[in-house]
């Protein structure tokens, strides 16, 4: 009973200079199935799907849709053939409304007149047809992340896409939203749409997949169907070995003076949803406090405020007993605070500078590496060599440019610099995002080390597994407020999931 596959990609090869992203990869998608594309960060999944969606042009290989061989030169080509992609970072214009985003590109620009009322009605009808609850006149920037994702999906369905590709769709969602998304995907599959879901998270595969294709190092490792796999075998296929087990965290000293004390913090943001509306917590020596929450509920603003790059409207922040409310990054560093920002390219590194310069940024800023206005280059380099050694960064060349390093090594550079200041409080936001398993493991171990040395760590993350593995306590942020907090040992997953979705637990 062989039916023609909806999509068949054979021998796909794509290289970017010396890096081979896809090496002779085969991939097949059957009509109406949910096919998970699994692999570590950097395994080549997004590149492969980029080729299917017309955003990347392969060096070799063939793509067939049904019986026909096709060759896409732009997303327009793919969309015309009924293939749509939801990217990890949504392709939505924040200032436009839902309706405007959905119809973007659906009509020729020479069609002249854009009748707003008519368009909104059409989109509202479509939303109803696909059983999505959307306010088509709302601006994207005012909508929560999972609603934005629904708009992305509606956009594709509106254009008649029968094949949907979702790239890491759960990376910023909470358990409730993920469940809702999966239910929606199953519905789509039932009604004949074919779905490819790209992910690196094993548990999602188990729940959703009809079939799984595992990519490793740019090559296809295996393709297996439901019933033929379990988490362990997939992990082996993905990484070549079993997943590392983290050592248990050292218990925190909850009775000592908190190293970080935040009281009634209010931070404003561009979109109301994202602001922080009165957050209070303490961070004790040896403690790792996890901040959970669906992306877009104030975590980024909290991070920026604590890092000193965003203004604090109300409330107070104390580090080591010192009031640092509204302090500049320099003052915060002096007080003993270091930050590992979630955006390592945007806020962690200066990609075009050397490793020595990157490692020495804070030292030059505070004057520790300068003397009478001149930079002490030799000292900068010597310190860099020390750090490169200690953190096993490769290549261990102080003159190498930061952009030449792999993601894992880049993150180690950031770690080295921030930990090298010997902070008493470390704020880490999504520190392992985009890293392969080995690099992520290294980062996690380092964070545990920091806590073991009686320093404090505030871990802000979208990755629940990361939070559960590392934290002593977890608090849940929703629309800028803390809805739930509990020590990990006493945590109720259900309550956690509900809090992330916005339902505050009954007062104890």
């Amino acid at each position, binding site marked *: 009973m062989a039916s023609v596959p909806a999509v068949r990609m054979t021998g796909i090869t794509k290289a970017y200079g010396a890096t081979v992203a896809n090496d002779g990869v085969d991939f097949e998608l059957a009509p109406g199935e949910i096919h998970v594309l699994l692999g570590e960060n950097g395994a080549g999944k997004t590149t492969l799907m980029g080729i299917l969606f017309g955003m990347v042009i392969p060096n070799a290989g063939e793509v067939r849709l049904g019986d026909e061989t096709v060759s896409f030169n732009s997303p327009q080509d793919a969309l015309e053939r009924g293939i749509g992609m939801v990217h990890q970072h949504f392709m939505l214009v924040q200032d436009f409304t839902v309706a405007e985003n959905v119809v973007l590109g659906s009509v020729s620009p020479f069609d002249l007149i854009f009748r707003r009322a008519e368009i909104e009605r059409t989109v509202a009808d479509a939303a109803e047809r696909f059983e999505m609850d959307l306010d088509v006149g709302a601006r994207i920037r005012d909508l929560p992340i999972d609603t934005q994702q629904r708009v992305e999906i509606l956009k594709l369905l509106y254009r008649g896409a029968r094949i949907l590709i979702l790239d890491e769709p759960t990376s910023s969602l909470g358990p409730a939203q993920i469940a809702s998304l999966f239910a929606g995907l199953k519905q789509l599959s039932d009604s004949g749409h074919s779905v490819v879901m790209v992910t690196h998270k094993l548990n999602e595969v188990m729940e959703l997949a009809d079939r799984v294709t595992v990519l490793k190092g740019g090559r296809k490792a295996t393709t297996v169907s439901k019933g033929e796999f379990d988490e362990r075998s997939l992990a082996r296929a993905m990484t070549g070995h079993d997943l590392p087990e983290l050592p248990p965290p050292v218990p925190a000293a909850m009775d000592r003076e908190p190293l970080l004390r935040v009281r009634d913090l209010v931070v404003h943001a561009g979109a109301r949803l994202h602001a922080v509306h009165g957050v209070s917590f303490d961070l004790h020596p040896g403690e790792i406090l996890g901040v959970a929450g669906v992306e877009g509920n104030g975590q980024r603003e909290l991070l920026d405020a604590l890092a000193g790059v965003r203004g604090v409207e109300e409330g107070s922040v104390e580090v080591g007993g010192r009031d640092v409310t509204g302090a*500049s990054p320099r003052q915060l560093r002096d007080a003993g605070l270091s930050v590992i*920002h979630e955006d390592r390219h945007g806020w962690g590194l*200066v990609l075009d500078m050397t490793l020595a310069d990157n490692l020495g940024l804070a030292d030059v800023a505070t004057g520790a590496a*300068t003397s009478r*206005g*001149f930079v002490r280059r030799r000292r900068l380099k010597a310190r860099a060599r020390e750090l490169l050694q200690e953190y096993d960064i490769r290549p261990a060349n102080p003159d190498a440019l930061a952009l030449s390093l792999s993601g894992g090594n880049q993150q180690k550079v950031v770690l080295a610099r921030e930990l090298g200041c010997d902070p008493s409080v470390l704020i880490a936001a999504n520190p392992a995002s985009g890293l392969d398993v080995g690099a992520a493991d290294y980062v996690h171990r380092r964070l545990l080390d920091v806590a073991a040395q009686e320093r404090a760590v505030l871990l802000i993350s979208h990755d629940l597994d990361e939070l559960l593995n590392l934290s002593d306590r977890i608090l849940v942020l929703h629309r800028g407020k803390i809805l739930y907090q509990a020590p990990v040992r006493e945590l109720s997953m259900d309550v956690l999931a509900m809090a992330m979705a916005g339902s505050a637990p009954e007062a104890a």
Partner: protein
Amino acid sequence: MATPELVQPAPEETPRGVPSVVATVGSRRAALLRLLASLVATMAIFSALIVALGENPIDAFDAFWSGAFGNKFNVGQTLMIASLLACTGLAAAIPFQAHLWNVGGEGQLWFGAFASISLILILPDGMEGWLAITITVIGSIVAGAFWGFIPGILKATVNANEVITSLMLVFIAIALGDYAISKLFPSQSNSTESVPFDRLLPNIWEGTLVTAGALLALGAIIVAIVLMAGTSLGFQIRAVGLNSNTARISGMRTGRVTVAAFAIGGAFGGLAGAIAVLGINSALVAGFSANFGFLGIAVALVARLKPWWIVPSALLFAALRTGSSGLQAQTGISSTVGEILVTVFVILLLAFGVIRLRYAEATQ
């Protein structure tokens, strides 16, 4: 246009995502070939223009060459123009390293010249020549720094677009210069009174008009090299230019660095004004600048923002300028044709990717 600010902005209001300004040139050999292609194309376009104007291209090139290097005197002229362009080149290059467009070099040049002529003429008669010169040069540098400081501080505090403010200051400075010529120190219809002989920068090369102004320019280059390569401020300027977010979160005061970079750029522009008044024209002459301030931007880019490379770059552009004067002398074609030549060359360099500025993408 990345906007570091003194007032804490919310990071997402920083407009341009993550900019990374690197005037890179890809692989050496490919770049060289493209450079040659630009040169050839420029000459071709230029020849076409010459023909359209009714002259023989060969004669034109000949006139050009002799105008720039034909004899000792002309070489001297080229050197002096190069001195001006080196300073305006630095005026653009330093802020550019902080990813700030100082497009107001022309204004800093004029304001520096205005300060020069004003100071040198009003300093008491009894003062020693060398003292008057020193005071005036320093005054011009400060004046230029001030003219650069204005767009810098406006940007850092209220996020006023620095391109527009700098450009407006250009016109204001030129108007001030014209005011000096027509009302403050009137003499002829297109120039102020002359600078007294003992207050001119001394000649350093017999048989030419090369003065100590050239040495001042050289000194400026050295100062710039030391600044960018060795000082903490230079380091911070580069860091802020390459990634102002990371610089900021590492503790650098990006607002102050912005202002400092603009002021330093302006200072170099002001120096150029002093060189023009005290070392070339001996007065403030109307229209003395053939867009030297703006061309400084081109000089800086061709030099890939490196102070040392500004020397050959400035010489190249200066030669194109003096060459076109030679052309005018011989054929009567307006010397602004030199500006056509220069800008076509730079645009081709940009078009062929010899000069490339890299940006990360805009995110919202």
